[in-house]
């Protein structure tokens, strides 16, 4: 039985086409269609319900020493990340170096962090983290002071994405959204409302902050403006807001109580954010070259093969997956753009001449480029060692299709309906 998110009724109200995804009922699109939602996020602002994402809280004195062993990324600057409230992307690996999941770490305090994991992996992640903690406690000299709690159903998550995200929030703060603008504004209250937008505007990419929910909703509020991580608790009214997302655009993600989510959702929609579904979320992340677990990362694909080297610290002290990750990968993730009208899909074979050299991990029609694009995992021997000289996807997509351009390009074919369709290697991201 699929679970409903706290925003289920909002999706029905907006005539969202509901599908089951990772055990949750979510809209794949609203009546406007995937392309319109996609372009709204690229040009204006879109709003996603991402409440299905999992939240696993790790706390205790040894939180970060443990994470350093659990995760493949460098955590030696974690004190700075805690102080500046900056979220970090990381891949959690099996002993072989393949991916258990990719996740976002919110370092809330020196003794507490929130791991945001993929919905489909919540149970497997929790089991993996507990198993690694048990193993680590046996090896470590200190007794493990560590709590691991799956809080996935305690938090709703909304993602406001697009170049006009800040304008949408400003509109709410100025009471222009036509919602929650009480007529009896005190001077302090009016000032506070603008102050929170300034606070969000000052956030750098991946930074986060805490806001009192009443202020976000334009309600009267007399409490403190500057909140700390202790205030961010299940059942409270403190919202964690980060300048993060999965679209390649500017934007903010909000973590809040499930019961408060519908009001914030309606507020953001009233202020001009266009609701967008899973379909657009996937085409946007693919254009942005971001991996999707189960496609570019899995228990049979390592983060090195997925081209995530910049998030790996192979030479740090022992961590789970180190030995496997030190081996030179034989496969590599590449970006491909269609030179014709063909649209690649996950699972299609990639050919070099008549040799199968790999397969498509994600493929779609790109609404931004009006072309078929793909991420594919291919044998390293089939591609040149460095991709610095590759053309952009935009350049390739704009080539007129009636001329043969293959001469100057690094081309591969993708087998589509029995035909070898021509594709050219391009830079990642695609936009």
């Amino acid at each position, binding site marked *: 039985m699929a679970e409903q998110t706290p925003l289920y009724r909002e999706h029905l109200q907006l005539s969202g086409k509901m599908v089951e995804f990772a055990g949750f009922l979510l809209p*794949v*699109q609203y009546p406007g*269609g*995937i*392309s319109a939602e*996609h372009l709204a996020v690229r040009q204006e602002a879109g709003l996603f319900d991402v409440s299905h994402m999992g939240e696993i809280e790790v706390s205790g004195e040894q939180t970060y020493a443990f994470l350093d062993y659990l995760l493949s990324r460098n955590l030696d600057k974690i004190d700075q990340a805690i102080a500046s409230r900056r979220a970090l992307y990381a891949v959690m690996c099996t002993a072989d170096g393949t991916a258990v999941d990719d996740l976002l770490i919110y370092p809330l305090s020196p003794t507490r962090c929130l791991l945001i994991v993929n919905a489909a992996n919540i149970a497997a992640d929790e089991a993996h983290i507990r198993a690694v903690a048990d193993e680590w406690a046996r090896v470590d000299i200190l007794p493990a002071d560590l709590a691991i709690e799956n809080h996935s159903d305690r938090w709703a998550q909304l993602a406001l994405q697009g170049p006009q995200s800040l304008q949408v929030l400003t509109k709410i703060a100025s009471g222009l959204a036509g919602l929650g603008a009480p007529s009896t504004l005190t001077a302090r209250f009016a000032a506070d409302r603008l102050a929170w937008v300034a606070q969000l505007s000052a956030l750098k990419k991946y930074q986060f902050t805490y806001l009192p929910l009443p202020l976000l909703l334009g309600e009267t509020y007399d409490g403190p403006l500057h909140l700390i991580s202790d205030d961010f608790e299940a059942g409270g009214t403190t919202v964690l807001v980060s300048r993060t997302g999965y679209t390649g655009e500017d934007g903010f993600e909000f973590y809040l109580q499930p019961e408060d989510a519908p009001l914030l959702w309606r507020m953001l929609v009233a202020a001009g954010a266009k609701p967008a579904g899973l*379909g657009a979320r*996937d*085409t946007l992340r693919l254009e942005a070259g971001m991996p999707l677990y189960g496609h570019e990362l899995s228990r049979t694909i390592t983060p090195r093969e997925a081209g995530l080297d910049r998030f790996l610290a192979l030479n740090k002290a022992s961590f789970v997956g180190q030995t496997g990750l030190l081996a030179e990968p034989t496969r590599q993730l590449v970006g491909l753009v269609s030179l014709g*009208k*063909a*649209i690649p*899909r996950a699972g299609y074979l990639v050919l070099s001449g008549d040799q199968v050299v790999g397969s498509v991990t994600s493929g*779609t*029609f790109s*609404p931004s480029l*009006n072309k078929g694009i793909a991420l594919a995992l291919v044998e390293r021997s089939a591609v040149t060692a460095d991709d610095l000289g590759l053309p952009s996807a935009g350049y390739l997509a704009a080539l007129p299709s009636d001329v043969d351009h293959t001469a100057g390009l690094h081309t591969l074919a993708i087998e589509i*309906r029995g035909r070898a369709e021509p594709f050219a290697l391009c830079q990642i991201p695609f936009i």
Partner: protein
Amino acid sequence: MSNIPQELRYAKTHEWVQLTGSTIRIGITDHAQCELGDLVFAEAKPAGTPVKPGQVIGSVESVKTASDLYSPADGVIAASNASLADQPEQINTDPYGCWFVEIELTAAAWPANLMTADEYKTFIGE
């Protein structure tokens, strides 16, 4: 509610079929285009291709999904609508005006296993 013209017949794989003499025209239904969403690719098998029931005669793709059209009968493709490839979005606005292929039938009669408009309406749960 989708548009389901009375004079056409329908396949379980959501093609509409129009019979004129010994020829049938085939396209995708309003319900199908609605389920698929914004269409961005369409192609039809070329004229001269012999076909059997269940054989692929064309394909459509939306941003997210690919879907094939199947022949309901034995015959030979007599005409193929090449203009669809340039404007697949037309299928969204005029699904019954956009035919993919015309098949010259081996037996000049309605192919077996097709539904009437009323049966198709029930089939898609409307």
